[in-house]
């Protein structure tokens, strides 16, 4: 069994989840507090990947990233970045595609922390970073865990967007879900089954771990 697609999938999910957390955390915090009139528009943009067919999103990203078009040409000429049919392209596409899975649980988490805790910390002279680190995040651990796991699991399960933007280049863009598809196309069901089984078991173990952790947390806190 060739493990490369599975390792590539794992690498993609880890990198995507980390980038999503760094971008999603401040955005979710801002969305949880802002009274900006344009907030519904921003929330709609964040949630768009939830309802958009992956192939549609993948198509637009393919068009945007293509060096034949101005944005893709700008990325290539300015940063030397070629996002189409590359691992970097997969990461960017995955970040966009999994954005709501990170932002929405974090936003709900921030909103679940009683406002007076933040206010108490403010009156104690704590900086925004200190409030985030010592007050907000510790009191929304379940939401953080949910956001990380959902983003990670969603990235592992991607197919349409990945296929559109990355194709199936072994070792570069051929992730596990694409490998399953390729093996089925070749009528090699045994190989497809091995990849599918690993993905199934991996996803199941992650979810069991999350539910166990959340249960343990609830018992220790209350």
């Amino acid at each position, binding site marked *: 069994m060739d493990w490369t697609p599975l390792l590539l999938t794992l690498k993609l999910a880890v990198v995507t989840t980390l980038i999503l957390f760094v971008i999603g955390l401040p955005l979710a915090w801002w969305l949880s507090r802002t009274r900006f009139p344009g907030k519904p528009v921003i929330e709609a943009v964040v949630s768009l990947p939830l309802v958009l067919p992956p192939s549609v999103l993948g198509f637009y990203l393919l068009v945007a990233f293509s060096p034949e078009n101005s944005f893709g040409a700008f990325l290539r000429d300015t940063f030397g970045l070629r996002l189409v049919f590359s691992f970097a392209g997969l990461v960017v596409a995955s970040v966009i595609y999994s954005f709501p899975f990170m932002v929405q649980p974090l936003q709900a988490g921030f909103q679940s922390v009683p406002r007076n805790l933040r206010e108490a910390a*403010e009156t*104690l002279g704590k900086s925004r970073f200190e409030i985030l680190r010592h007050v907000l995040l510790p009191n929304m651990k379940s939401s953080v865990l949910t956001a990380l796991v959902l983003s990670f699991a969603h990235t592992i399960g991607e197919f349409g967007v990945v296929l559109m933007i990355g194709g199936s280049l072994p070792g570069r863009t051929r992730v596990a879900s694409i490998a399953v598809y390729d093996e089925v196309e070749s009528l090699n069901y045994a190989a497809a089954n091995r990849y599918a089984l690993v993905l199934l078991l991996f996803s199941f173990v992650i979810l069991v771990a999350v539910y166990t952790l959340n249960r343990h947390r609830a018992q220790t*806190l209350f």
Partner: protein
Amino acid sequence: MQLQLDIVHRFRSRSPAFQLRVQARLMAGTFTALYGPSGSGKSTLLRLLAGLDRPSEGTIALGDTRWNDAAKHQHLPPGKRSVGLVFQDYALFPNMSVRQNLEFAQPKSLRDPAAISRLLEMAGLEDLASRRPPELSGGQAQRVALMRALARQPQLLLLDEAFAALDDATRERMYRVVADFHAEYTPITIMVSHRKDEVRRLAERVLVLQDGQLVEDARVADGWASG
């Protein structure tokens, strides 16, 4: 050092429209009570002083430092005001132990584990130091909230019904803690209370609010509400 406030605060969301209007000067070392019925604006005034809300009009200043000037859109954030606020619903951090709640309140310049131990002892909380807020009774949580506010050694101490959940014996003990702190550090202390006996026991001056208006400004020693 004196606290000067001359503010108007409007709530557009309240029906009927509510307006808080207060003008007062409070000297350092004075213990002032805010007395009045529910909904008269007492807690709102504390929030404005703490910097958690901004007045619609007017100014708040401590000494030469202007905390708010609505006309100039000037607002000093809560953390820069040297304020200790005891919230009505305690607002203890549930992820921290009692001791950690107090340690978190101490400014870096005042970090002193012995001082935290003293505060715990003063409030009779030594045996509860490692407990978390969800494991405390209302009275215990209220004591922690009070000591957390004192840990910061603020220039302005704001108590929003800080003794409401205490039994008689514990209330008397906490009265003494607050009175001793007030005598030692001479902050400007403002206490919201519904109890006349509490006002007479602790405060030197009382501001009576009704429907957002300051209707009485009296010295307790002159026999306020003693009849």
